[in-house]
């Protein structure tokens, strides 16, 4: 490749430099996701949108797949977005990010648009990301010439269409497609997909994959800032407690996020440049400094598990124990050497 071409390529791989914020007091006051939405009280996904927009800043474009953060967020004639936002189809999160980044890159490369690094962030729920859109997200993570972030807000069901089970719903959860009845107590028998680790393991050129939880907002924002700064396609998976779908009082959203992490149900980690780093409580679980709380403390707080018997809770505990005691990389890679 000619020297000019190399320079040209490198120029257009430049990202914004978004340093981490050291504590909540260092976080700027400006909001880019504001009033104008009608998400439920206690919606952690809306909280995630707010944190993400703040972390990315004003020179960002957001693409939103069909889901709660579309239907409840943007109702024509109003919008909470102070930065450009566009809807994309349920299975198109990866394609929306790739297309937007490719369009900007082409226009800047050909001198048709002022050259500057613009953040491209595509968000999807678990229906859009874990189920329908997985193939397009996988493809997006292969195109290393495009800087983009795919942010999966996982409230563990198709919550905007009436709470239906998804590939990311926890085992046994009561949803409108898995309602317990007289003949069958457990209708949803699939174990939750291990999405972030699957994408990290399956896309070795992807520089950054992380899990977050809005119960830890500064960490979540810094994760977004790192994903946008590191270059190439990146992926963040957030667990978002959902009062409507999980059936609990909205005031406990934040607390349930913490319990999900402390029971070991939701591991927090980053895979950065091929290196795995557990963080927060999850790091202390692995090092043995923190004893996991029983999953019963998590399950019994939510109406979606109200039909669970002791036997169901024991099964759930055993599966969670496996994650930390049997897996090759505890909480992350779900197999061991034979």
């Amino acid at each position: 490749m000619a020297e000019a071409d190399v320079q040209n390529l490198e120029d257009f791989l430049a990202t914004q430099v978004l340093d981490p914020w050291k504590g909540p007091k260092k976080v700027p006051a400006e909001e880019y996701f504001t009033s104008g939405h009608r998400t439920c009280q206690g919606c952690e996904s809306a909280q995630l949108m707010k944190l993400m927009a703040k972390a990315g800043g004003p020179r960002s474009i957001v693409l939103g797949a069909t889901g709660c953060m579309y239907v409840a967020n943007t109702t024509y004639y109003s919008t909470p977005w102070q930065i450009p936002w566009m809807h994309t189809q349920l299975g198109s999160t990866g394609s929306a990010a790739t297309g937007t980044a490719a369009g900007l890159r082409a226009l800047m490369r050909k001198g048709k648009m002022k050259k500057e690094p613009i953040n491209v962030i595509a968000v999807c729920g678990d229906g859009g990301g874990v189920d329908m859109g997985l193939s397009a997200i996988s493809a997006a993570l292969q195109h290393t010439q495009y800087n983009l972030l795919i942010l999966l807000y996982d409230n563990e069901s198709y919550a905007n269409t009436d709470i239906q089970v998804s590939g990311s719903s926890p085992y046994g959860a009561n949803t409108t497609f898995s309602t317990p009845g007289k003949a069958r107590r457990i209708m949803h028998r699939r174990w939750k997909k291990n999405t972030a680790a699957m994408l990290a393991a399956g896309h070795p050129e992807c520089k950054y994959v992380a899990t977050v939880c809005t119960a830890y907002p500064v960490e979540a924002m810094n994760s977004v800032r790192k994903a946008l700064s590191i270059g190439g396609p990146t992926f963040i998976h957030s667990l978002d407690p959902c009062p409507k779908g999980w059936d609990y009082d909205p005031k406990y959203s934040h607390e349930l996020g913490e319990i999900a992490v402390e029971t070991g149900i939701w591991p927090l980690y980053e895979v950065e440049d091929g290196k795995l780093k557990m963080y927060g409580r999850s790091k202390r679980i692995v090092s043995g400094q923190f004893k996991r709380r029983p999953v019963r403390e998590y399950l019994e707080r939510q109406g979606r598990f109200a039909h669970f018997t002791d036997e169901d809770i024991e099964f759930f505990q055993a599966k969670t124990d496996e994650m930390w005691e049997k897996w090759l990389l505890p909480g992350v890679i779900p197999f061991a050497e034979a």
Partner: protein
Amino acid sequence: MSPAKATAVKRVEATGGPSGETEELISGSEAIAHVCRLADVDVITAYPIRPYDTVMQCVSQMISNGDFDCEFIVAESEHSQFEIVKHASAVGARVFCGSSGVGWFYAFEALAVTAGLRLPMVAMVGNRALDDPGAFGVEHNDALAVRDLGWMLAWVSTAQEALDTALIAYRVAEDPRVFLPCAISCDGAFLTHSQAIVNVPSQEMVDGFLPPYDRAEKQLHPDNPITIAPQANEDWLMEMRRQNDMAARRARDVIIEAYEDFGAKFGRGGEPFIERYMMEDAEVALVGMGTLAMPVKVAVRKMREQGKKVGFTRVRWFRPFPTQELQDALGGTKAVAVIDRDYSFGSTFYSGTLTNELRSALYPLESRPKIVSTIAGLGGREVTADNVIEIAGMAFDVAEGGDVSEEDTYWIGVRE
């Protein structure tokens, strides 16, 4: 056909004349690839399916040879292929895409929203029978399936027309009065894989005809922080649909303007919407789309030699549908025989889609020709001149009050 053959560009003669065009021996797919280069398309997405994919083989070769520069993305499905360019178009990039048969259907959701969002994507459809059974040959059902969504649809009959129409398509689609996507249909094999001498215009000529794509206040960019496609229900949706309807209506005049300007600058292009072949005094007219034109024209000439007053009207644009032009061209005839290379099972008189649309278009005329509905050439089966003479014979029969029924559809060349 091997990829190498499909992408081979043989320069026949550099005329270098006042027109600045080059004559090249190329296929319809290659002709459209040249438009991608000449229009300086910014983002192109590919996914393999025969027969349209020859255009992407050619684009890929142009890029690797350094003849053309764009973001060229090989997607992981047709759905992603069309979604990627849809989003690139929203930030202001000129885009190109394409597909065939069930590939086009795999992208169907993206096709619907592209028109709904008023994004001026230009796509090539290499017309192909739908699965199952998996057949490679031409049928028009793939592209016709989007006829209600706001896509402009053109059918071409030669590689030259493919090139010219693709240039016109960019100009019309990207006109702010329109901002609708446009698909150019090329009959699989007959056009996608057949070579002909094509006049390829110079960059200067194209630059003089095709202005840059400017999305203006609708461009998605941090300098213009708009929200695109928020959720809307019964309180606003009907007004939005009406805006699309008005855009589709305005497209008509914009297409006419574009053909006028194209004719002035390139010295060809013909009549917008339809081609009239020996129609001046025709008592019986044949109607069809795409590469059918060749055997039909041969048959018309043969019948003319025998003194039969028969002509051919080729529908070049199916959307916007050339209602007025067809009324004008066919209103004076005694009978019209439509050759559909498509089907619409269970529809009015079991006709194909072109027949059904044409019947509606002619209905308000005070003196209407009789209409014979036929289906031929499905799955790429050859429509011969003899088939066409047989079809014309049915039209003469119905004109004279014979046994042929207007209330049925005749399958031509089929084993019953």
